[in-house]
Structures are given as C-alpha cells and as structure tokens.
C-alpha cells in the first residue's frame, strides 16, 4: 500500500552541518529585511539575493560539478531551502530553476542545453518560469491547446499560458505544448524551452486579490524557437511533467508559506498563553514537525532516484491545509484585527497571509486534484 512509502528518514550529519552556515549568512544578509516582506515567502523576488546564493553554491547545488553545481545530496539542498523559507528570504527569482527546471534539464536535456543553462542557473543568474496552465486548462492539464508546429529547422509556437508566476521577470519558460495530434490526450505533448525575449511573446501581469502582480498571462504569436528547444523526447512531455511534479509537490515550501505568521503569532501570544492558545500552538507545532518528517521521507525517496508522486501529493495536500489553518487560528486566538495599512506588523502579516491563503491549495495542483491522485493511488504497488 502507498502509505508504506512513508519511511521515517533523518537528515545526515554532513547535510545538517550546513545549517549553521546558512543561518549565519541569512542573519547577516537579512538583518534589515522586514517581517512583512518575509511573509512573501517563496514569491519574494530579489535577483541580487539569488546571485549571492549562487556565489555561495546554494543554487542548483545538487547538479553535477561540471555544470557548476556541487553534487550535494538532496538533504543538503533541503537544509538550505528550508532555512531560506523559514527565514522568509526572497528566493523566488531562482526558485523554479533550482527546484525543477535545472533538474529537468539535467535529466532530459541535450548536452548543449545542459552546457548553456545549468552553469547560469547555478550562478543564480538564469531564471525560469513554468508554463503549464492555460485559460481552459487548469486542473485538466492534458487538455492544453498551445501548440508547436515544426517548420524546417524551427518550431513555431502559438497559444497562451496563464497563472505563470514570474514570467515577467524570468529569462526562460519551460512550456508544455502540443507537438502532434493524438487520440489519447496525454500523448503528443512535449516540453520546450522558450527564450522569453523572443519576438511574438507578450507577457501581461494579472493582479491577485491583494492587488499585487506576481503571475501573468503569456501569449505566443508565431514564436520561432530552435528545433533543439525540446527537452527530452518529443511526445513524452506528459510523463516528464508527471515526474517533475514529485519534485514540485513535496518540498518545505508546501507547508512553510505561513511560517512568518506563525512566528509572529507566537510572539504576540507571549510567554504565558491561555489554554486555548497553548493548545492550538501545540497542535500547529506537532503538525509542522510531522509534515517536515513526511517531506524528509519523500526527499529520501527522491535521493534514491525514485519518483514518489503519491507521497508528494500527500505532503502537498496535508501541508496546504496546515498553511491555511495558520491565518484562521491567528484570527481566532487573538483579539486583533488584520490591517492592510497601519496597525501592528503582526496585523499586517495576518492581513496579507489571510488573503494569500486560498492560493496555497490551488498553486502546484489543487487540493481536489491531489486528493484524486491520492485516492486512486491507494492499493497501487
């Protein structure tokens, strides 16, 4: 049964040894970084900060040395990213290339693609966004309509992507597009790398409900890309994307999005909580520790070269519930109104995360889609 996939795993000592170093770095680098900005978690963008991490060898660190990585273990990378997230560091510039584009290019890319992209990713200088959803293809990803048609030694891309985080700030997109017609919708899809500076690409911001624009709609109008822009095998995009999801759904970003609010809530409650406050803070602590152990268990599987999509879906679904519970409880436990402007810092963080929380069970796969995967995977293997 799938639940057996969850084996308790701990961080090896050599990976744990990185923690003190990254904490010291963050303490120094983020000394003036306000908590309200830290609350952005992994959507906070700072290209300069990403370059600094690159200089430290903390971007693409699990990639091979010949491409600029340090061949660090999955657990070493885990220690770095969980410390970045727990501190609320602005990591979004390099987040997608570090988490999935780099590993995807390494796994499926050509030598030329690896040589061109990976060293720049590791320097923290080349940023990727992920082109999956389309206006009529959200949860039903296999129904995408964006198309690349071969023309001589080019592919011509037409179509539209939507909800693309950081498209306006990234250099490249890895897009899932249809490259041939097939009776089965999951066939005939391919992953292509698109240089976002090419002619024919229009990127328009979409404001979220807080009024800020970190995601976009992206239009492709006869965009010419090189025939070598395909990653992996033409027509195998669906299985490649599916494997990518295990990387995308199990990391600490799936339960640490409200971490700054939890810290701030503990601060506001103070050293003498009432019974209800103590109970709920204790519950959240137990959940956090357990989610982290679940996530480490998936990391162990990933490091053994497996693709634990089922377990990753569990982490993300359970993690999103936890992240969303924090603003709920923060409002229930303290008699303090959230404030968008003015008020205390805590009131502002609460206001912000309360508004962001609905996205936690949408981005990267909705709760409903994840629960479908989890239910169908029960009894498999």
């Amino acid at each position: 049964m799938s639940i057996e996939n969850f084996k308790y795993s701990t961080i090896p000592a050599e990976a744990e040894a990185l923690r003190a170093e990254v904490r010291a770095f963050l303490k120094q680098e983020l000394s003036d970084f306000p908590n309200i900005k830290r609350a952005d978690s992994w959507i906070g963008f700072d290209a300069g900060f990403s370059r600094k991490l690159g200089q430290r060898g903390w971007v693409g660190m699990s990639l091979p040395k010949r491409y600029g990585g340090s061949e660090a273990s999955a657990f070493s990378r885990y220690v770095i990213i969980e410390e970045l997230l727990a501190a609320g560091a602005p990591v979004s510039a390099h987040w997608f290339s570090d988490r999935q584009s780099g590993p995807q290019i390494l796994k499926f890319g050509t030598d030329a693609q690896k040589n061109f992209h990976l060293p720049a990713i590791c320097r923290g200088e080349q940023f990727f966004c992920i082109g999956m959803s389309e206006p009529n293809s959200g949860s039903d990803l296999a129904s995408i309509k964006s198309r690349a048609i071969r023309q001589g030694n080019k592919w011509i891309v037409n179509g539209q992507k939507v909800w693309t985080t950081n498209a306006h700030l990234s250099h490249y997109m890895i897009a899932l597009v249809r490259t041939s017609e097939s009776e089965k919708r999951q066939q005939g899809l391919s992953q292509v790398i698109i240089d976002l500076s090419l002619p024919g690409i229009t990127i328009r911001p979409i404001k979220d409900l807080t009024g800020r624009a970190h995601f976009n709609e992206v239009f492709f109008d006869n965009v010419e890309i090189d025939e070598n822009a395909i990653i992996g095998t033409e027509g195998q995009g669906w299985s490649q994307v599916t494997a990518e999801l295990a990387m995308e759904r199990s990391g600490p970003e799936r339960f640490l999005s409200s971490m700054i609010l939890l810290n701030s809530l503990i601060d506001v409650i103070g050293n003498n909580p009432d019974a209800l406050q103590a109970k709920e803070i204790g519950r959240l602590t137990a959940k956090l520790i357990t989610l982290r152990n679940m996530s480490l268990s998936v990391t162990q599987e990933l490091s053994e070269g497996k693709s634990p999509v089922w377990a990753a879906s569990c982490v993300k679904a359970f993690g999103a519930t936890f992240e969303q519970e924090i603003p709920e409880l923060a409002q229930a436990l303290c008699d303090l109104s959230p404030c968008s402007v003015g008020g205390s810092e805590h009131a502002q963080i609460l206001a912000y995360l309360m508004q962001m929380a609905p996205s936690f069970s949408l981005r990267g796969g909705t709760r409903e889609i994840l629960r479908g995967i989890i239910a169908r995977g029960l009894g498999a293997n």
Partner: protein
Amino acid sequence: MREIFDSTIERFFQDTVDTEQVLLAEKEGWNGTLWTSLDELGFTYAMVAEKAGGAGASWSDLCGVARLAGSYALPLPLCESIFVNYLLSKCNIAPLTGALSFAAKSELRLNGDKLNGILHDVPWGRYTQHIIAVVPNDDCNQLFVLSREQIKILEEAYNVAGEARDSFVVENISPVFCAALPAPISSNVLMLGGAMLRSAQMAGAMHKAMTITHEYASERVQFGRPIGSFQAIQHQLAQMAEHVSASVIAAEAGFSASSGTVDALGVSTAKICTSEAAGVGASIAHAVHGAIGFTHEHPLHLLTRRLWSWRSEFGSETYWAKHLGDAVCKHGADNFWPAVTAGHFDTV
C-alpha cells in the same frame, strides 16, 4: 532486528489473532490462551539487555511491533509489558515475566517503607502479575514495582473497546522492588511511555482501517459502479490517507527519538497527530463503510472502538498540545524554528 521483529510478530498475529479471538477477549475480559502463546515468543523481554536474557532492542526496533499490535487490535498488554521491562532495566531491576502494566496516573505516598494510595486507569490491571508506578520527588523520582496480589481493586473499568482499565487501592504495601529513576528519565515517563505506545498502536489500527475501507470502496457497487470511483468518496479516502501517513511518520519519529529516555517532544508530537487522526480516520472509515460498518458483525469496530479509546489514553491531543504549546511560548518565537529542526528546545 526490526525486520525480524516485524515479520515474527506479524506471522503470529496472522495465525492467531483473528476477529473471534479479539471478541472472545472482550467477552471474557481476558484471553488467557492467547496471552500464553504470545508470551512464549519472548517479546516482553525485547528491550532487556542480552546478558539479562533479552534482545537488547531499541524503541525504533519496536515501533513496528506496536503498530502491528494496533492493526490486529491485539487485546493484550504486550506493549505495556515491553515498556515495563524497559524501565526496570533502566533502573537495574531484573526483568519480570508474565503480563505487566503501569499506572501513569497515581496518588501514592511513601510512609517509611510502606506505600499507600490509589492507582488509576491501569491497562489490563487485574489480569497482570506486576504493576509499576512512579512517585515524583524533588530529589529523585522513585519507581515502585507492586505485585498484583498485594493491591485491591477499587474499580473495574473498561475502555470503549472493552479493554480493562482498572483502578486499585494500595494499602500499607511494601513494594516488591523500588529504585531511583536515573536521569534523564523524568517523573512523567509513564505518561510519555504510554503516549508513545498508543501513538504507534493508533497508527497501526488506522492503517488497517484505511486498507479495509479502501477495499470496501473498491468492491461495493452503487449506481452501477464501485463507490470508490465517486469523487466524494475519493476525497474522504484521500483525507484519511493523509492523516494515516502523518500518523505513521509521527509514531516512527517518536520511537526513533526515544533512545536514552522517552523523548518528550517526539512523543507529544506523535500523540497529538495520531489522536487527531484517529478521530478523522474512524469517522471516515465508518462513513465510507455505510450501515454494514456500524454492525457488530463487521470487524471495523474492533479498530474504531480502539481508536476512540486510545486517542484519550495517556493524554489526549489537547493534553499534549497544551504542554507543547506552553513550551513553545515559553521559549519564544526566536527559538521556535531552531527547536523544530533540532528536535528539542533546550539548546538555543
């Protein structure tokens, strides 16, 4: 050692502990035949040092045994007996044979060398040979071993699953053994130990309930198709699976962290998560099973009635969450994340 333990005990449970045996235990209060054959396997000595005739196992070696005891609804104090002999060996007292248990809640006073007071909610109390209790003391916490024959029943009680949970009166008794609890073992070690055992038993019972619930959803046909193909059912199964996965990991983490002593942070985390999951899991298992799962004939209740009991035994989720929350708040936000990653509060 873990694999040998898991496979040995699972084979025994598979061959021996069926629905009939569990129900017999509930009807009679005690299934003596089952205990005798289980006792012959020698698991109650699992954590006793090899030179004293045990297997020298660690708690992480035994998490599987406790999980399996839960998944087979074992109506016997196997986990309790293993734990008692573990504590006795920590106190340099020779291991005991037979069924053993402990009183996590007690009001005992020592007058000279005589003990007086009450033992509450002792699992399987009246059917055991020996019961241990701890008397907190500022200088040094004392562990006492009492013979079942020395003490009188105050109340014969049963939990929801019909498992004996008895209270006793201790009147002017000279304990069979007494010893100082060595550091770092704390005065609440019996609560922590019980919570640790129940967290793994709940993880096991829920895992089994998950399996049979999923099987039922795959077989039961309504509206022309298996009910497990309906999204409303799938989402309940998935929600239960999330909680069961969390419970398994939390219980394993609690056992793994408990090497020198029962680890307070690991175990309270495990008990909070598994107790909460027990409520959700039992509720979903019954919802999916429909009316048949509500019958005495169907074995689901052997698991769910235990989950409803065990979630409150040795501290409910609220009890442990309050303790943990107090500790978190006392150490403050700056120490919060460092404690989560270090697994304890006191280094930062």
